[in-house]
């Protein structure tokens, strides 16, 4: 049986194809302004027995694809995908383009509880994107560059927009932009840690997924603060789509 999972996120769309439980293909594209069309492009030429959509665009996709598709929340999809890739994980941190969540699993791998950020882009990929831009770093180099910092600067604003003005005043004060970059990463990590600490973490194995899990500086700061290893799957952005494909296989 061939099944597809499709994750229509705020910044990117991922498609994962699974055949008899084995991953056979995965693709990714920017979401853009026509997510359904992008999704269709990614699925072009594929014949699947089941298709399951997740992510913020899941219902739009369901509406346009009618009976051919069902939906699952990104919370359940990420849980399923992460458990399959990292079987020991008890608590998952997922930081995507627009939101961040923590998902706690029970021993069977089902979602036990979750927390999600509220409304604004505090502590999300969008925060890193905006602040990288204001400091003149390309987003995909932001983490590596920040790791070169020599000083720990405190950034107080969690709001992406206010952080930008805080950055501006620091630049004006003559602070080094690598140090500021590090401070920005620390503020994301602090936020994630405080969200994680709402769950009992003693002895827990923590998995980190979503686009921000690519960022080496955030990963390192998380590990330092949590005093434990944080597991990141090979392709952290595909986890939701992979989970959706696995759930589709069981329909």
């Amino acid at each position: 049986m061939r099944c597809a999972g499709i994750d229509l996120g705020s910044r990117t769309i991922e498609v994962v194809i699974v055949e008899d439980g084995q991953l056979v293909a995965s693709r990714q594209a920017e979401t853009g302004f026509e997510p359904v069309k992008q999704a269709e492009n990614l699925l072009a030429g594929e014949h699947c027995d089941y298709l399951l959509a997740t992510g913020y665009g899941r219902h739009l996709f369901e509406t346009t694809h009618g009976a051919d598709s069902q939906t699952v929340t990104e919370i359940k999809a990420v849980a399923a995908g992460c458990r399959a890739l990292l079987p020991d994980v008890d608590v998952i941190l997922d930081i995507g383009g627009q939101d961040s969540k923590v998902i706690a699993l029970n021993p069977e791998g089902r979602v036990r509880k979750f927390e999600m950020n509220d409304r604004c882009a505090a502590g999300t990929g969008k925060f890193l994107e905006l602040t990288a831009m204001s400091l003149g770093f390309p987003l995909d180099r932001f983490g590596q560059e920040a790791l070169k910092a020599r000083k720990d600067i405190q950034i107080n604003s969690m709001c992406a927009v206010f952080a930008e003005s805080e950055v501006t005043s620091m630049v004006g004060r003559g602070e080094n932009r690598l140090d500021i970059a590090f401070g920005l990463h620390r503020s994301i990590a602090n936020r994630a840690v405080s969200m994680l600490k709402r769950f009992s973490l003693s002895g827990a194995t923590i998995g980190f997924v979503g686009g921000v899990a690519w960022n080496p500086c955030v990963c390192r700061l998380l590990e330092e603060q949590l005093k434990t290893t944080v597991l990141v799957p090979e392709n952290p952005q595909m986890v939701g789509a992979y989970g959706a494909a696995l759930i589709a296989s069981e329909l």
Partner: protein
Amino acid sequence: MTVDYQPMWQELGLDLQAHDDLLQGLGTAYQDIFLSQKNRPRGMAYLDFVMREVHGLRIKELLDAKKTGRKVIGAFCVFVPEEIVLAADAILVGLCTGADFAMEEVEKILPRNTCSLIKSAFGFKLSRVCPYLEAADMVVGENTCDGKKKSYEQLLELIPNLYVMDLPQQKTEDGRHLLRQEYRRFLQVMEELSGVEITVDRLRRGIELTNNKRWALQRLTRLRAANPVPISGLDVLLINQVAFYDDPQRFTESINKLCDELEERIQQKIGAFPADTPKIMLSGCPMAVPNWKLPSLIERSGAVVVGEESCVGERGWRNLTATAGNTVDELLNAIVDRYFQVDCAVFTPNPDRERHVAEMCRDYQADGVIHYSLQFCQPYIIESMPMERRLNDQGSNFLRIETDYSQEDVGQLQTRIEAFIEIIS
């Protein structure tokens, strides 16, 4: 034939254009949210009629009653004793506070970070779109939180007939004494305003009428524990909302009739939703008309709401007032005893509410509890955290939601609610 209510609204001083927009929006929302539901009980036709006439026939009734000398009292809270209002031959109506209106005007008077419920009350007044507010001879405010307490100081500028009632914050003898004093003062004010002397018989009649309404609502609630659930949570929310402004006697009769029908439906296993649909209980802040956002998201996501621990819900009517007493004073004490049991988050500490939520969760066999707080409503937001710990400890699923009357977070809320339903299914 449709009646033209424009002259009546004009006479009340409503802003006709803004009011038309409101009614149109309300009509569309009602169509989308309520009339599109499947398998509704026939008895809901009455509620549909009441809603259609919410600013029409009901207002005409109030104005007709005013012509015969009866007074109309507007209120925001379940602590305003309907027993006393009815004993003075007056009519109690709940006021509109469930939608954002004229926010830019409101924010000239109130800080932006004020809860939607308070801002909405101001918005309805400033934009002159609430006929209940305009028809009221007296509006009763009550000190249930710092936000309300302080904003009533400002509201007095807009509503000169505002009467503010103090409330105790502790369930001690001193607290009970304060409530008794306040209710005695209210009784006197009602006598002065209405020119009716509140006698033992009148007060007992007021208690009976109010109790009958509460009985009908209690009966309705018990029927919701059936599987399949005979009525949607949205429809019951509407009933709870209408309970605040419809004529109490007529309302009671209609709800009892609806309950007869629901009993038949239960026997025939007819549900508003399929059997074994996940059941959710709501707890927290009140939801005044037309605040239907959260229950409608829940029921569209494949679960059914089976209980509301809220002022627009069980907190408002689960306790009855004793009718025993041979003097006005004794009956007044019975009223105080009844209202003193209300487990509003104004009280500190407030263990009764936690106990009650846990008990409702068990009685209605809910699969999970969603706690609803309005943003910036500290009393309920703060209580939601120990509540979550307690319910988790007893093995119940619990989800905390903080929101307002806007639609901007609907996508986020939907994800949370769907994920919660995935957990409890």
